[in-house]
């Protein structure tokens, strides 16, 4: 189909940071009150823009949202479909619970291979819960694909993908041939909201469920069993509390310096 693209967007279902988040007695994160990770709206928007610029679904472009997670993670896919993804894939299996980055990237890599002939895998720069940023790089390594990560811009020109990557002190242009794994920052675009039409259209879109058996991964390779890290303890830190608050009466700058001196900070 000429220059049409098959794009997999990785979306994670994460606890909503607007509420208090908890790590339970089993040292795992309480995943009730979860949403589509805010930072995964950016890769979805980037994928939709690439697809639309090439004539959208009618011209053979595909935007597939892929999540790995428990039954509720389907809600992240529903949101992605409302925003505009064409279809959803839900990798779910009890054995996946407790996966670390190594196990997550192993399972996602197998799921992506299972989907076949993908041109671009686009992820967020980090999840908003684990926040490790390990998964996109590990996917590139496991899939043997070029890595174009932390992109603040992304263009695809024929079979070449080009990004801007901003580092400390310098900004780089990085290029690779498709297929490639990309991750994007919140600088790349302004994600759209689902509109009424999108919400209606989403009802007709399909979510496919994949099990570990279907993607050819053994239960022992993932979840707590297949993870290469172990959490020994997770203790809540006492919440920061408000200290003294004063109102400026013309001498607050001096009072600030008094405070710094009392704290031995100057």
């Amino acid at each position, binding site marked *: 189909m000429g220059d049409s693209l098959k794009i997999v967007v990785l979306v994670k279902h994460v606890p909503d*940071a607007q509420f208090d988040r908890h*790590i339970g007695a089993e040292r795992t994160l309480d995943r009730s009150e979860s949403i589509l990770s805010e930072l995964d709206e950016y890769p979805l928007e980037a994928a939709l823009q690439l697809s639309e610029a090439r004539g959208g679904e009618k011209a053979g472009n595909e935007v597939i949202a892929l999540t790995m997670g428990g039954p509720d993670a389907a809600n992240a896919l529903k949101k992605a479909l409302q925003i505009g993804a064409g279809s959803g894939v839900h990798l779910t299996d009890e054995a996946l619970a407790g996966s670390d980055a190594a196990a997550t990237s192993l399972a996602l890599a197998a799921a992506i291979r299972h989907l076949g002939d993908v041109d671009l895998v686009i992820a967020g720069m980090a999840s908003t819960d684990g926040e490790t*940023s390990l998964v996109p790089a590990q996917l590139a390594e496991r899939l043997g694909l070029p890595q174009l990560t932390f992109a603040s811009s992304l263009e695809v020109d024929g079979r070449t993908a080009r990004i801007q990557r901003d580092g400390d002190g310098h900004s780089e242009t990085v290029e690779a041939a498709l297929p490639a794994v990309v991750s994007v920052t919140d600088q790349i675009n302004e994600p759209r909201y689902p509109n009424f039409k999108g919400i209606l259209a989403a009802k007709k879109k399909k979510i496919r469920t994949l099990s570990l058996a279907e993607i050819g991964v053994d239960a022992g390779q993932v979840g707590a069993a297949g993870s290469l890290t172990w959490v020994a303890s997770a203790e809540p830190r006492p919440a920061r509390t408000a200290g003294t608050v004063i*109102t*400026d009466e013309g001498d607050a700058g001096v009072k600030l310096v008094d405070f710094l001196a009392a704290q031995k900070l100057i």
Partner: protein
Amino acid sequence: MTAETVLVVLDAPAETFRKGQLELLAAGRILGSVSAAVTGPVSEAARAQLAEHGAAAVYTPDGADLGEYLVGPTAAWLADVVATAGGVRAVVLENSPAGKEAAARLAVRLGAGVITDVVAIEADGTAHKSVLAGSYEVRARATTGVAVLTVKPNSVEATPANAPGAAEATPVRVPEGAFATAARVTGRTEKPVSGRPELTEARVVVAGGRGTDGDFGPIEELADALGGAVGASRAAADAGWVSHDLQIGQTGKTVSPQLYISAGISGAIQQKAGMQTAKVIVAVNSDPESPVFEIADFGIVGDLFDVLPQATAEIKRRRA
């Protein structure tokens, strides 16, 4: 080499290593005797620093410039360095995006577990990290023979080693095929340097937000009086008032300085995520209802254009 080797991965410095890089060597020494893997050429002065900080060997890439590619080839080379060094118990890297990504890929090659955002290390390899915007303190371990750790700045003191290392120069070839599927850097623009301390390493950070209305003068002057770094909210960075390199928060830098002064910043959850673990927080905001006051040790309801210049002048007066 003993079975207690810790490989510390460092970006090649233009001249000498930064404090934050020397901290990584100190972090590595908690776990064993250190060797350095430097991703480019090492000057004599830099090699002397590595010796002083205990590096037994200094591995450098031979045959290719890793800087021309994004991360993948670096990870492939590091895997070969781990094999060459022998008996490597842990690999310690910087907690920057590139550091985490090299860690990620190296770990896949080694079949190793990675712990990111490490703020403390115990001798048995247990790493501490602060998670969920500073609301939990987690202790975690890699269960594999080699542990890969990315360590945050200001986590350990960059003290020299008790006994200097030989810092023996050891070139290791960049493996054939490392570049086969690599993404290539085709352009690079340098940004101007500020002369202020590196944001994530600074003892003091003074940050400005939308309340500065584009005038960072009072922020910069207070930062300079305190020998600190300048930071910003996303609103200020998005407005183009300062470089995005200075953005603090969920999608910017995470800082844990001794002192964080927030001025004209409301304290949104994404901003707090990047500064909540500061030792002392001071907030200056004209709105008494601003959420930043909920986490400030010392809050001033006032106009930053009055309060900051007065504080700067007072600091200078007391020093004079």
